[in-house]
């Protein structure tokens, strides 16, 4: 929800590693994720909580299991907030160029 949370969550290599693992294969349990890291279960849980707080990871229940999914929407929001603005300027510049060229022709 808050961009600060997203940037803070991404500013840690372990958390980025966890996102990479979910990008590779989504819907994993804590136990599966833990097996890929040299870290205690508690440590992995802590990192997942930060990622969840930033909205980058979403959990869903499936029977008795809690599955973790990568949610790219907060990153898309950051992209759209700044990048589309620049794209808009380029489009506007090209549109102006077209008008000028056509008028002078």
């Amino acid at each position: 929800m808050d961009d600060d949370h997203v940037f803070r969550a991404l500013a840690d290599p372990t958390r980025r590693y966890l996102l990479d693992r979910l990008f590779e294969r989504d819907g994993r349990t804590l136990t599966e994720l833990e097996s890929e890291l040299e870290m205690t279960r508690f440590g992995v849980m802590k990192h997942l909580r930060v990622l969840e707080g930033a909205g980058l990871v979403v959990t869903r229940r499936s029977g008795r299991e809690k599955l973790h999914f990568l949610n790219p929407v907060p990153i898309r929001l950051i992209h759209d907030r700044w990048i589309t603005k620049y794209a808009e300027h380029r489009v506007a510049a090209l549109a102006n160029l077209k008008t000028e060229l056509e008028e002078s022709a």
Partner: protein
Amino acid sequence: MSTMTAQATQVYSVFVRATPEQLWDAITKPEFTSKYFYGSVIESTWEHGAPYAGWAIDRSQQYVDGEVIEASPPRKLVTTWRALYDPETAAEPFSRVTWEIEPAGDGVTKLTVVHDELEASPKTAENVAGGWSFVLSGLKTLLETGEPLSG
């Protein structure tokens, strides 16, 4: 990089400063969907078993085809889904899209889209993977600012 297979269950979520009713309208009314859903006019009577269709704004082409499985305004919408805009995805079986709308306090509502049952539809899974983020970002912008995303 390791081989990338698109996921058979995909989950997308966004917090929007709007009421559940506003979100429901944004998902089910064509005058809203055309502003953030790749220009698609989404149409359905929203009854169980009714067709769910997404059209190009000029009706020249149908983009999405499906059927309503559950419509519980303003909290939950489930439809089947087949993307017709690409011959490869159009040839794949129907998958399923679930929209969940939950109040999150302080005038904020959490919207979650689960696109699943994609096991037999790998092209569709690959195709929608980036698309849902764009759609939800556009939906949030539209509801919070009244303006569609540009660019």
